[in-house]
């Protein structure tokens, strides 16, 4: 059943993204940025999906510490690992945009720096899990670390409001910015597609984590026999 859901969701993602690639190419260029502004259609949805994943990891980690149920630990590791890939998409597309618009690949700007720190923190989460053998200890330490790592997420989000920055100001949910309805529609579709893709990859990763636990159990059984 889960396999069928994954296939249907993947097909939906492919249709949405293919249809939207055409819609995005038909949009007029942005006046000052030109064609490169279209990177926003991957840059922003990737960031939104990764940040949502971080919030899910936070909730799952708290639930693990409260209930000690390993399914929450599995969910936390699944969303964090997928989130790392999406945050990498956000950082790399942002860097390419910066190279065209600013003339440099990277600037130590509050938004860019906090986003990079966020990626490093979650990469640290994955390394920490590799370093610990005992399952309960690994899950507990990782849950505490995940809660700590999440503190960077609001900093990433609010950095462009709190500090002077060269990163473009928000055009959504703000009085200053304006995003035409045609552009918003295409962005909304890409947002749905990227969130669906995030969900599918999380489901696959979650299943792997559950199978890995079964493998660990079987290993102990074999060892005991």
């Amino acid at each position, binding site marked *: 059943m889960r396999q069928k859901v994954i296939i249907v969701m993947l097909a939906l993602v492919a249709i949405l993204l293919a249809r939207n690639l055409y819609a995005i190419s038909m949009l*007029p*260029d942005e006046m000052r*940025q*030109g*064609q*490169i502004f*279209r*990177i926003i259609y*991957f*840059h922003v949805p*990737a960031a939104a999906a990764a940040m949502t994943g971080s919030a899910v990891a936070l909730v799952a980690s708290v639930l693990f510490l409260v209930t000690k149920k390993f399914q929450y630990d599995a969910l936390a590791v699944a969303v964090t690992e*997928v989130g790392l*890939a999406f945050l*990498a*998409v956000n950082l*790399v*597309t942002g860097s*390419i*945009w910066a*190279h*065209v618009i600013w003339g440099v690949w990277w600037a130590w700007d509050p938004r860019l720096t906090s986003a990079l720190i966020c990626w490093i923190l979650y990469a640290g989460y994955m390394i920490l899990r590799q370093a610990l053998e005992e399952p309960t200890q690994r899950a507990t330490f990782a849950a505490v670390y995940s809660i700590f790592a999440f503190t960077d997420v609001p900093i990433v989000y609010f950095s462009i409001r709190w500090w002077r920055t060269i990163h473009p100001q928000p055009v959504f949910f703000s009085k200053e910015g304006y995003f035409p309805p045609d552009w918003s529609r295409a962005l909304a579709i890409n947002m749905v597609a990227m969130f669906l*893709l995030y969900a599918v*990859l999380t489901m*696959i*990763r979650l299943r*792997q984590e559950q*199978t*890995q636990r*079964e*493998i660990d159990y*079987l*290993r102990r*059984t*074999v060892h005991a*026999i």
Partner: protein
Amino acid sequence: MHLYTLTPVVAFLLQADADAIRDEIGRLQRNFQGLIWGFVAAWVILAAYTLMLTFRERKIRREMERLKSMVEESEKK
């Protein structure tokens, strides 16, 4: 492409000299190349991660089958 997007281009061509036009064409090309690289990078990262998941899935399945057969053999003995 909508016709109104060409209006500033036509206005620019009427005013500018050959060097400025060449510079502008170069800028537009760099802009387009950046966009293509951005899209390619996004897809390559996601495809690489998906491949990584696929390889891990295979490895886990093989390990599972190996352990199951070991448990079955141990129980027979």
